[in-house]
């Protein structure tokens, strides 16, 4: 369906990534946000707190991030689109109820404006060290979807996509921004509401007697009933059957977890999103994401001007990882160069998928600054020779 015009601030604006993300959420139909202040993410909720009372939305500043995430999962069961916003230390606290959202199959969006970690780390400076945490941070096996904007414009556009994916696949979607994109101000064009496609919560047509909150009906994603509509359903973070009743055995657990994982892995082709250029003759491919991808493009341009045949692949959706494409490329190129502001998280993934067919060259530092493009160029040159 089309976006509700009330939430859409149509026009050209000069916004930072945080504010653009908040606008994206409101355009996507988000009407409940719970959060706890933390640099460099707070501007997202500050924006929402200002606009929500005029949109029929509720913002609540909770007592901590455990509570924020729990409230977001609770509110999502009323059919409302919900979101929370944080950075590293708060993201760690949210893991508990991100797991609950995954297990209960609750659509919601978790924004993490990454800063340098571990622990309190570098509160005001950029990092990309939460990539693996976004995927594996809560215990047990599950899959998430994670998106990585590289500009305020994408902070707006991809936030809408994050909400839509959360609805389609019924899971918590991770929105992995970084301090640089969050605090960077650029032009953001917000289209008319009727040019924005939003995925509504689709409620079951079944009667309460026929309905089970985790019935699959031949597909992979259960139908939704919201609290207060007479379905009197039960849901739990325990392993459960299709009625949402706890079942404590290995068979049910295996089937449940395989479905949670399968609904993403089996649909990876439609979820995966990346941009590439210069692949036709590439010998070396730079793989990057978020702010680092922007800076890496300078290095790619420089290397090309020096006659190196280098291609560029930017991950827009970072999880699920574009395994197919990387595997394909690994068969035809000599090396991957993977710059990221952490000590090698996506590099590990590229290396795993390349499986020895091409060499992986990480270009890392732990956080606090974006890459110097020259440092990336240098590795491209090495990788090509």
């Amino acid at each position: 369906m089309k976006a509700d015009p009330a939430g859409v601030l149509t026009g050209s604006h000069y916004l930072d990534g945080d504010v653009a993300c908040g606008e994206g959420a409101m355009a996507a139909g988000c009407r409940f946000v719970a959060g706890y202040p933390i640099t460099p993410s707070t501007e997202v909720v500050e924006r929402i707190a200002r606009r929500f009372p005029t949109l029929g939305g509720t913002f609540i500043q909770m007592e901590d991030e455990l509570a924020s995430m729990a409230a977001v999962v609770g509110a999502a069961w009323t059919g409302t689109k919900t979101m929370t916003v944080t950075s590293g230390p708060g993201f760690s606290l949210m893991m508990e109820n991100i797991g609950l959202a995954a297990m209960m199959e609750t659509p919601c969006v978790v924004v993490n404006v990454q800063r340098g970690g571990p622990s309190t780390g570098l509160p005001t400076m950029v990092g990309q060290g939460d990539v693996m945490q976004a995927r594996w941070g809560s215990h047990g096996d599950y899959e998430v979807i994670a998106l990585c904007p590289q500009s305020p414009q994408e902070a707006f556009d991809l936030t809408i996509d994050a909400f839509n994916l959360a609805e389609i696949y019924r899971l918590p979607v991770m929105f992995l921004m970084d301090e640089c994109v969050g605090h960077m101000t650029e032009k953001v064009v917000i289209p008319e509401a009727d040019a924005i496609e939003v995925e509504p919560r689709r409620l079951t047509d079944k009667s309460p007697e026929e309905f089970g909150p985790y019935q699959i009906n031949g597909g992979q994603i259960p139908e939704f009933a919201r609290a207060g509509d007479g379905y009197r359903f039960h849901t739990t973070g325990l392993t459960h059957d299709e009625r949402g009743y706890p079942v404590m055995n290995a068979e049910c657990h295996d089937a449940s977890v395989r479905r949670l994982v399968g609904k993403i892995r089996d649909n990876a082709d439609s979820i995966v999103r990346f941009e590439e250029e210069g692949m036709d003759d590439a010998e070396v491919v730079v793989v990057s994401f978020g702010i680092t991808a922007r800076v890496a493009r300078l290095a790619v341009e420089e290397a090309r001007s020096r006659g190196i045949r280098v291609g560029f692949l930017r991950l827009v959706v970072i999880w699920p990882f574009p395994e197919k494409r990387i595997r394909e490329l690994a068969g035809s190129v000599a090396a991957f160069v993977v710059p990221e502001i952490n000590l090698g998280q996506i590099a590990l993934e590229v290396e795993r998928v390349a499986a020895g067919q091409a060499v992986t060259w990480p270009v890392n530092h732990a956080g606090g600054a974006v890459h110097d493009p020259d440092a990336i160029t240098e590795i491209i040159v090495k990788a090509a020779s």
Partner: protein
Amino acid sequence: MTVATKSTTASQELEHPSAPLLRMERIPHVWCPSCGIGTVVKCYATALERSGVDLDKVSVVSGIGCSGRVAGYLKLDGFHTTHGRALPFATGLKLGRPELLVTVISGDGDLVGIGGNHFIHAARRNIDLLVILINNFIYGMTGGQNAPTTPQQARSSTMPYGNFETPFSLPHLAASSGASYVARWTCLHIRRLTWSIEEAIHKRGFRFIEVIAPCPTLYARLNKLGTGLDAMRFYHDTAVIRNDADTRELDISFQSEITCGKFVDEERPTFLDLMHNHYSDQLGDRYVPTPPEGGMLHEQ
């Protein structure tokens, strides 16, 4: 009273008087014989039936623990969440769809141990939640460890020489944090507890009812207190009812007097009242509140 009549018209198979409100297909439940939790479920179900509220609009939220299983046996929208987080989860439900009657039923370890911070803040906000805390003085589900409610001298598996920490007095904690309704009963006070829950259903704001419940399997065994029936005798002999008692005088010592009653019953503006009034003042016509049925995105 309809409930009583139903239970006496026995066919071959006696139906549980609260059957319409229970997930009978999940019986037998997980609780031990003579555990106090079932009593609370029965009192809550009876109170709900009597209250006349639309049961389709009632949600029950529990955390984790033996008491945390309550949500799983009630035929209502039920949410069995994470350990300690029932209150913030319930806060989200209530704010997402303000017309719901949201009840939190969970244990002492859950609500005031790991969830203690959420407890004081939910009370401070006076958010519209009915909270029933089942206090068995111990962490039951995990095998009898010390709780923030374990009386001094009482034994627990992690205080094998007896507890030396000072426990919370829960009515005092709730009242001083801002709850608008505060009561305490034991599992022996079935009628009073039921009546108190029913009364609280019709009130607004953060309503807190502590129920002292026997855990014969762990608390009683570790402390040589006998069976569930012995616990009832003990409540009978030592519980005193002092409505409106000063909440500073409600401490519970090991095997001594338990003061019960309703201690606080004050109408105060709730979180939603304050929010609506404030935004209406500040924003006038521009204020668009979340509709009672929730801010869901509807297909046009």
